[in-house]
């Protein structure tokens, strides 16, 4: 059954440190990959990942 498409809503200002254009590129790339390719990336990258952004700690458990 055909449904009407939603309009995606976004924030005026990007809150994160990643650029939207870069993330969109990476997402498109990954969505086009096969399951085997996905697994290969995850295994390879998990060995070499370094956090590039400091992690925000929970405040009062939230």
């Amino acid at each position, binding site marked *: 059954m055909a449904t*009407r498409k939603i*309009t995606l*809503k*976004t924030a005026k200002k990007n809150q*994160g440190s990643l650029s*939207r254009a870069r993330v969109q590129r990476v*997402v498109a790339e990954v969505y086009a990959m096969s399951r085997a390719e996905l697994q290969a*990336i995850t295994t390879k990258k998990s060995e070499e*990942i370094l956090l590039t*952004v400091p992690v925000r700690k929970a405040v009062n458990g939230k």
Partner: protein
Amino acid sequence: MDDIKIAGSYDTVFINCPFDALYQPMLRAIVFAVYRCGFLPVTALDTDDGTETRLLKIIRLIERCRYGIHDLSRIEQSSGNFPRFNMPFELGIFFGARYLGDKIQRNKNALIFERVKFTYQQYISDLNGIDPKAHNNDPFMAIQLTSDWLRTASGRKTIPGHVVLKTEYQEFDEKLPAIIAKLGFAISDLPLTEYRTIAEAAVREKLV
């Protein structure tokens, strides 16, 4: 472009929930569902301004959001033997705005989550008659309840059915580790702000 727009106050959903690792699968599912339904998820972690107190920031965010998701499922005692009051407190602010605010604020609409049906009556009996929804700590149930509520509350005909939403979220969840790895993060430590950017891009990818 027609497929993406800056959100107005009628498109924003304030998410009042825990932000710890235990709750992460739930929060990620809810954020994805909100985007996929055509709304913008907003949380207290969105901006970091040292000149603004946490409470003022929360009040400002609640004021600008027509919709609110308030999860009371995790109010049990913390390691210091104190119950967690933040979520009920913020729900109280939302109610205050809804019933004491101006014409715009009176349009507010909330979805209240609990873990098991009717347990709220034991700790917040003032909510009797409000009908909180039980998600049983199941992210897919949270997706279904969120989309059902947004469809009813907004009256929008474009919101997809929960089977579509769950299928798309499952696909996204499978691809997320690879996306995160390629962006140079670890899945266990991905900040919420970065997750939001990724979820937004994933929803857009499927719409194009």
